[in-house]
């Protein structure tokens, strides 16, 4: 977006006008060309943060994006990523912030064998607002993508998940899977989720799913029946819900994630 967006723009309709007013548009983008295997750890600061990334043929980027708990004003992080043949883009986004946060990732898979793996976790409370917007464009045949975002919400926090998978005309043999799961621990939290599949080819396996729930009563009872106090059982189930996020994640993320979970569970 080159001008300042408004809530009338579809991509920003679940955003916050107050927060937008504190961000700068268009985002300035740092460029990054990845030609082998590389890890980018982006600790997002307040304001607008942009990246323009190209991943060369056969190269791989492990992109870790962290919205830290000490953000004191709205933050917007956006990346445009182009992945060439047999390239691999792996993204792990962790949001621990108590502020408005906009997490944006657009991936163009432009060569056969290119893959995008997008994983995200947000753990939010009080008045935090986590606005996620991803677009995966399968521009050519034989490209694949996987996306799993999970959120835990309490207080009056709000989660937004808008995710688009687009398959270009005649881009055949595409696999694209998308999933968003939210665990709402309070009655006053809110989740808006909008999966979008635009498919212009016929030999395609695409899926999307969205679940919004409280903790599972049967699981909770099973744990309590073994002598685990309710608070303890709830904490174990929240950890279990989030556990797969660390599968395949760069080790740099583990410590931050653990601390984030600990802090979040302490606040329950």
């Amino acid at each position, binding site marked *: 977006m080159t001008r300042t967006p408004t809530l009338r723009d579809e991509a920003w309709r679940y955003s916050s006008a107050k927060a937008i007013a504190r961000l700068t548009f268009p985002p300035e983008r740092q460029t990054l060309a990845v030609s082998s295997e590389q890890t980018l750890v982006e600790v997002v600061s307040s304001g607008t943060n942009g990246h323009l990334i190209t991943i060369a043929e056969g190269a791989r980027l492990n992109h870790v994006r962290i919205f830290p708990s000490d953000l004191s004003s709205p933050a917007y992080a956006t990346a445009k990523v182009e992945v060439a043949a047999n390239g691999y883009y792996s993204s792990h986004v962790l949001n621990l912030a108590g502020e408005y946060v906009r997490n944006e990732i657009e991936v163009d898979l432009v060569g056969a064998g290119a893959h995008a793996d997008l994983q995200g976790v947000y753990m939010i409370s009080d008045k935090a607002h986590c606005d996620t917007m991803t677009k995966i464009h399968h521009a050519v045949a034989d490209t694949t993508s996987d996306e799993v975002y999970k959120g835990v919400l309490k207080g009056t926090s709000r989660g937004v998940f808008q995710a688009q998978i687009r398959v270009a005309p005649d881009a055949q043999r595409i696999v694209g899977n998308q999933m968003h799961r939210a665990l709402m621990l309070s009655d006053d939290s809110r989740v808006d989720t909008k999966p979008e599949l635009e498919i212009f080819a016929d030999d395609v396996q695409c899926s999307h799913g969205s679940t919004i729930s409280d903790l599972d*009563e049967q699981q909770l009872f099973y744990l309590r029946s073994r002598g685990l106090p309710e608070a303890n059982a709830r904490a*174990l189930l929240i950890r279990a819900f989030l556990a797969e996020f660390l599968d395949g994640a760069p080790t740099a993320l583990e410590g931050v994630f653990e601390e984030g979970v600990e802090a979040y569970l302490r606040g329950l």
Partner: protein
Amino acid sequence: MSRKYMDNEDLDGSLLAQGPYMRAMLKITDLHAQIEAEEKPIIKGLNLEVPKGEVHAIMGPNGSGKSTLSYVLTGRPGYDVTCGSATLDHADLLELEPEERALVGLFLAFQYPVEIPGLGAMTFLRAALNARRRHSGEKELDAMEFLRLARAAGQSLGIGDDMLKRAVNVGFSGGEKKRFEALQMALLEPKFAILDETDSGLDIDALRVVAAGVNTLRSPDRGFLVITHYQRLLDYIKPDCVHVLHEGRIIQSGGPELALRLEDEGYDQLIAEAS
């Protein structure tokens, strides 16, 4: 209703305290319970006493209230007790939270053990055992100490490291789930265990393993309530006493021969006799 239990109903509290019933470990008196959402009575005036060291079986046709009884005793949300009492030793079970019931020594081996993706079996077992140890003032076990204990207990149940490394009940076969229930029971060493249709979903080999696991836990200090639809399980876990549940009440009690009779004649005849 059998003689024994008729008499029991007629006794008042003071007489109970003097008689052989003082040994009752689990004592259920005139229990009435319903499913909260439906307000439909399921348990309708159930009386039962299981003394320390004994294994009692509850048999009954589908819908007689067998599983509801196990859930009401262990405190599963969604059930209302409208009348009656249930105590384990001197603890008033119905006043306690599910975890407190576990900590006073009650254990339920689930008919359908619950899958918990993302929660490692070892993490779960250690958390449960340490909750128990904290409660009884014992030192909590660290990961290594616990691993040794769990391996030893798992061995006789055919539970190896591969199973302990998986998430709780996820991808377990029917037999593995029931063996995992037996492992939890062995580690938690409850005072009183309820086995809810432990034989369902088990082939004969798995049944033997699980039954052997239960039998090694039989002791003069521990009681069992074995809930089952079929007599088969009772070939492997020999009960001291068999009760027949029908429409939320015990309609007959007897020795192990009662289960054999049921197997021969079916529930219908017995129900007809009782009514």
